[in-house]
Every structure is written in structure tokens, then in C-alpha cells.
């Protein structure tokens, strides 16, 4: 099979660094994950279930201990052997706190202790029960024991099918690693470059300067031959600050939901983007397919407001709609549109667009004292297969983003978190239902769609994981 099998990938942003501990950062993950570094297990995009990678098998010994059997005959790109020690090293490196490790965020404050059982078996113990540890470990990249343990690096050495050839301000180059344990990939060399403008990235594929670009804007995805839409794991929503009058009145919160012309608005998100009724996408444990979102009913919204007004609710208080610049494509336009719609319904909504760091002050507790009634633009990404990564943060009174203060809800959540199996799923679904219809502290909007343009040369399709990784090994060439 002759032909040039070097490919070029255009990313929207330059990866700031190539620290394997930061692969949950989109740009880092898209370069490193499964290419240079590999985890013990990967998550199947379709089923949401963990599958073997560097671990061949695992079992839960007790609620806090898992045992992993490691793949044999795997070598790191610097020649070091992959074994239990290497696993211990990689996990310790992540948890030690000696370097900033983004991936750690997935574990919360969990403490992990790794005990090698023999060369190719490890026990991983956590301080709290971790029912989905293998799923979580999909973000822990195995790195060579020769990696500095106290310093973030830009020259990761992993076990993947590709090794890092160079990292310059212009590009990152990966070359096939000849001693790879698995199948030899079709791609021989991959060069990553980055351009901010979506239209230019699209143009680069069109002219053949590059072969693949993730995340182009919807208006650039106009060629069905090369442009693929995929549901990513992100859900957009507005959070209603129910603690602040007049938003503490549920009628107003319902009216906010009802006043949006969802069909009109969907134009900005792409017609394919499914309307959301809850904060997690299908495939995540806890998602309720049958939960109906709020409809568009301006009249009802108006009458709810009028009702509230009659009861002395100060409905004409200025409500600040806090948007974040660049949060997602057309994000500012969406905010403008929603503001207009709410104004139409008779609410005094005023849009304020903020820079990320400023916006974060409103997103996370403790909220600013003098914030007044606000609506906050937000986007939530749960790609970990379980609503446990969503519900407590949003709906428990202690949750970081929570505006809800209901002991009943807290109790329900605690019960659901402890449950397993179908019971767990049911409990989560109930919570989502209550959040939507009983408490109405947010306005779920859409499950987001990403668009990827793939050059004519390649055989490859994006999926829900494309936002965090682009495994080069899966790329084939058309004959």
C-alpha cells in the first residue's frame, strides 16, 4: 500500500502544554490521549462502558478496592517497561499534589493508594467507595517512570502508538512508535497545527492543507461529504438564581422557561441539536428519555407573570442575564435572543456579557453578595457515564453551582448516590424530573452538537468522545 500516510490535524487552539496529567483539557487530550499516552481502560463511546486498554481485566474486591491485571509486553516509548510500578508511579504522580494536575478533578478529593500485587497486577484503594473506578481511570494516562514526578512536562512518554517528535510554537508532530504493543496504525505521522478561525480551519481541509479539524462552526459545516455532526456530551442551560427575589417565585421561573421560542432559538445551535430537558445526555446513567422539556407558550408565561404581579411580586425588577464570552458558538447571539424573548414576555431582563474569570464568580459558590437576581449562561459536560457527576453539584444544597436549598432534595440525592443498578437510575431520573418541574431552578436548553470536517482522504467519523480525544489509530485511508 503506497501513498503518503502523513496527516495534518488543525485544532482550534494551541495546546498550552503537553502534560499527560492534563488530558481532560480538550487540546491536550486531542493530541495525547490514546496516541502518545494510554490509560488502563477506555470508555466505549456507544455503550458508555469501560473497556480494557493497558489493563486487560479488573474486578472490585470490596467497595473501596479494585484489582487490575495489566497487559504484558508493553513498552514505553523510552524503552522502559510497563508494569505495576509504572502504574503506581503514574497514579502517584497525579495525586501527589506536586504538580497541577487537571485530570485529578475527575476524582474530586478522593485519595487513591496503589499497591502492586505482582509485576502485572495492582490493587487500587480509595478512601471512599468508587463504584465506577475503571471509568474514571480512563483519564489517568500511564507515563514512563522516567518522567519527573514533581514537574509538569512538555515531552510526555507513554505507551501509545505514536511518540512525540517535536513540539514548537508552530506545531506538534507525532510519529508512529515502532515498538507499539498493538496493531500498527495506518497513519505514519501526524502534525497538529492550530488556527482560531473556524472558517479558516474549514478552508484548510477544503484546500487539502490539512486532513481533519474538530469543532468547526455550524455555518461552516455546509458540505455533507466532509462535515460530520456528532452529539458531544455537553448540555447548555440557564441557571435561575432562585435565592434572589423576584426569582424566588416559582411562577416567574416557569414563565422564564415558557417564554422561549425554542424552535427559533434552535437555529443558533443547529437544527440537529436536541432540545434538553435535563443536564445529562442520553447514555448517561440517570438520563430520562421520557422527560418532556418545557414548551413555548408565551401566553401562559405572560399570565404566570401577571399572576405573580397580582400577588405583589416585583416582576419588573431588573434581572441580569449573565453571559460568558465565547462559551459556545453563537453564545452571545443566543443570549441576545433570549433576552429579547423574555422582554417580550414582560420581564426586565438585561444582558451582561462577561469574560471567563469574571463569569466564574457567578458560577461557583460563594456567589457575590450583591449579585441581585441573575440568570447565568452555563454549559455542563458530563462524559463520565453517570449522573452522579451532575446532580449533587447542581441540586444539592452544598453543590458548587447549586441555587437550591431543599432538605427533601438533599435527602433524595443522598439516597440516589448510595443506590446501585436500576434503583440508582430511577432515583436520578426522579431528581431530574423534580428539578425540571418542581423546583425549576434552571432552564435546560440543548444538548450540543459538534461539527468536524474530515478530508476526503480519510475514513473516520467523530463520536461523543471527539471533544476529548482523536485516536489516530482509528483513522483509515480511502483507497
Amino acid at each position, binding site marked *: 500500500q503506497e501513498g503518503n500516510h502523513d496527516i495534518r490535524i488543525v485544532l482550534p487552539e*494551541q495546546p*498550552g*502544554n503537553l*502534560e499527560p496529567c492534563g488530558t*481532560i*483539557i480538550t487540546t491536550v487530550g486531542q493530541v495525547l490521549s490514546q496516541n502518545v499516552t494510554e490509560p488502563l481502560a477506555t470508555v466505549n463511546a456507544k455503550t458508555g462502558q469501560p473497556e480494557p486498554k493497558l489493563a486487560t481485566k479488573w474486578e472490585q474486591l470490596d467497595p473501596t478496592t479494585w484489582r487490575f491485571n495489566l497487559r504484558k509486553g508493553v513498552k514505553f516509548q523510552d524503552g522502559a517497561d510497563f508494569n505495576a510500578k509504572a502504574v503506581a508511579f503514574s497514579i502517584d504522580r497525579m495525586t501527589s*499534589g*506536586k*504538580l*497541577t494536575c*487537571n485530570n*485529578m*478533578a475527575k476524582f*474530586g*478529593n478522593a485519595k487513591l493508594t496503589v499497591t502492586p500485587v505482582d509485576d502485572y497486577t495492582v490493587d487500587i484503594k480509595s478512601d471512599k467507595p468508587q463504584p465506577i473506578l475503571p471509568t474514571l481511570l480512563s483519564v489517568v494516562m500511564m507515563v514512563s517512570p522516567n518522567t519527573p514526578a514533581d*514537574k*509538569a*512536562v*512538555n515531552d510526555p512518554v507513554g505507551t501509545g502508538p505514536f511518540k512525540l517528535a517535536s513540539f*514548537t*510554537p*508552530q506545531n506538534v508532530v507525532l510519529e508512529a512508535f515502532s515498538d507499539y504493543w498493538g496493531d500498527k496504525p495506518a497513519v505514519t505521522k501526524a502534525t497538529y*497545527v*492550530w*488556527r*482560531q*478561525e473556524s*472558517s*479558516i480551519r474549514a*478552508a*484548510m481541509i*477544503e*484546500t487539502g*492543507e490539512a486532513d481533519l479539524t474538530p469543532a468547526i462552526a455550524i455555518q461552516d459545516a455546509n458540505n455533507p461529504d466532509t462535515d460530520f455532526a456528532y452529539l458531544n456530551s455537553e448540555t447548555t442551560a440557564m441557571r435561575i438564581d432562585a435565592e434572589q427575589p423576584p426569582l424566588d417565585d416559582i411562577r416567574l421561573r416557569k414563565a422564564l422557561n415558557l417564554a422561549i421560542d425554542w424552535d427559533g432559538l434552535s437555529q443558533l445551535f443547529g437544527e440537529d441539536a436536541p432540545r434538553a430537558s435535563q443536564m445529562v445526555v442520553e447514555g448517561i446513567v440517570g438520563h430520562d428519555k421520557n422527560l418532556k422539556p418545557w414548551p413555548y407558550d408565551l401566553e401562559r408565561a405572560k399570565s404566570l407573570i401577571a399572576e405573580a404581579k397580582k400577588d405583589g411580586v416585583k416582576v419588573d425588577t431588573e434581572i441580569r442575564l449573565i453571559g460568558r464570552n465565547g462559551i459556545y458558538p453563537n453564545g452571545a447571539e443566543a443570549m441576545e435572543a433570549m433576552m429579547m424573548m423574555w422582554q417580550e414576555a414582560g420581564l426586565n431582563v438585561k444582558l451582561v456579557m462577561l*469574560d*471567563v*474569570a*469574571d463569569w*466564574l*464568580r457567578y*458560577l*461557583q459558590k460563594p456567589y457575590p453578595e450583591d449579585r441581585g437576581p441573575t440568570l447565568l449562561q452555563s454549559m455542563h459536560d458530563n462524559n463520565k457515564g453517570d449522573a452522579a*457527576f451532575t446532580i449533587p*453539584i447542581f441540586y444539592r444544597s452544598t453543590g*458548587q453551582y447549586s441555587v437550591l436549598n431543599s432538605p427533601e432534595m438533599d435527602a433524595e440525592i443522598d439516597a440516589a448516590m448510595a443506590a446501585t443498578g436500576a434503583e440508582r437510575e430511577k432515583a436520578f431520573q426522579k431528581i431530574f424530573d423534580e428539578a425540571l418541574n418542581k423546583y425549576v431552578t434552571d432552564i435546560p436548553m440543548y444538548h450540543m452538537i459538534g461539527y468536524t470536517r474530515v478530508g476526503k482522504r480519510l475514513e473516520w467519523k467523530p463520536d461523543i468522545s471527539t471533544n476529548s480525544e482523536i485516536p489516530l489509530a482509528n483513522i483509515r485511508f480511502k483507497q
Partner: protein
Amino acid sequence: MLNYLGRRVSYSAISILGLLTLVFFLTRLTGDPSALYLPLDSTPEARAAFAQLNGLDQPTYVQFWNFLTDLSRLDFGESMRQNRSAMSVALEAFPQTLKLAVVAMTLSTILAIVIGSIAAARPRGVFDRIASFLSLAGASAPDFWVAIVAILVFSVGLGILPTSGTGGWQYWIMPIFVLMLRPFGLLVQVVRGAMLSSLTSPYIKTARAKGLSRHSIVFGHALRNSLLPVITVAGDLTTGLINGAVIVESVFGWPGIGKLMIDSIIQRDFAVVQSTILVTALAIFILNIMIDLLYAVLDPRVRY
């Protein structure tokens, strides 16, 4: 003159120190970087650890003191984003921008001088009108607009130039063109304006009486007397470019200091912000000193 230069350099050194101090304190008013570096769902403990790791937990004056002591050892800190020395990040990006700036400014200054002078030689003539119109249209066109349209036309439509990136001479054409638009437009107008007044001076009559060619009257006598504002404005435009051709760099994927600066600012990568400002400020101060010396060379009446 040496005296002047000495004074000038020492004042500039003080100013740069002042600049760095200003930058240091002001950037720290712009929010907590940990919010930006860590994933949204990371725990308060992780944030505290991050702050401690990067020395952000200390009071600002202590951080400043540390910054100064590091500075005296020529240690400019580590980039939080890039995991390496902030100065090396800045120094890597700077030549890329400098190359662009030098080429774009040289070309646009030369072109503007030639075209502006010819336009001024026959004010309100056809050439003047066309040159003014085109240069002004270029100067007032939004640069990202021009850049994207150029890519759509020349790369996608005609396929004669690469869309973006760095490499051979083809890669330079569009960035340079887009970068030149505004400096060129402004300089043409400045040259034209200054030339119009010089061309009415009596010494131009002398030159005509001497039988000089039109060429040496315009470019020899009138131009030389018009150069002060021209080099000043050109200098200012150069500093503008040195400070970062943000749009061009990000559209064309040029790994320059402008893009670096804005990324670092948005990411609150303080050490890199400080290092880039130090590098560009040095370049700008040197440029300004050179321009001031040039005044004295160009016009013997100028004294300091």
C-alpha cells in the same frame, strides 16, 4: 550627544521598571487564575493547592518582592500554562513578530513615501485621488475581514496561496499584505500632508531655479523636510506591530508575540505577560531612542 544617550538610557531603564511594577500589580487585579487553570468542577482544595504551588496564596507585596529578587537574578518566572521558563516562551515568539513587523513596515513606509510624495506633487490630480482612495479604503477596512476574504479568494477560490501557517515566501504574502494596509494608508496621508507644506517652501523654488529634476526636488528636498512626522508615525505603527499583530497572527496561525500576549492575558499567565511586556518594551524603548536620534540626523536644527 553621548551625554544625551546616557541620560536617555537610564531614564528608559527606570521607566521599564515602572512599567513592570505597574503590570505586576494591575494584572493581579484581574481575577484569580486558578479559576481558569483548573477544570470548572475541581474542588476548593485543589484550587488552594494550585495557588500554593504557584505562589499565588501570598500577599501581593510578597509576590512582588519575590518577583523583584528573581528579576535581579534574571529569572523571569515559569509559565503556568506552558510549564517552562516564561522568558524563553517570549523570546521564541518575539522574532516571529519582529520579522513580520520589519518586513511590513519597511515595505509600507517605502511605498507610502513614494506614493504619498507623488500624490502631493500634484494635489487633487488623478493619481492623488486614486492613491488616497485606495490607501484609505485599505486603512479603514477591518483587518480580519480582509484576511478572511483574502484566504477565501486566494487560497480556497484560486488556490494560489496557502491559507495560513509559516514556511516559504508564499506564506508571507497574505499576512504582510494585511499587516501593511493600515500603516500604509496612514503613512500615505501623513507623507502627503507633510509634503504639501514642504513643497510650497521657498527653498523648493531654489531647487527649481537650480534646474533640479522633479524627482530630486520632490524626493531630495521636499521629502527630507517632511520626514519628522513620517518617521514618528512609522515608529508608532512599528511599535503597534511589535506589540502584537494579534489579528494577523491568530488568523494566519503565525506564532508571534501578539497571539502569545493575548492568550497569556486571557489565561492570566502572569509570568509570560510580564516577560513579553519586558521584551516588547525593550524593543520599543530602543526603537524610540533610535527615532529620537534620527530626528537630529534628519534635521540639523533639532537639538536636545
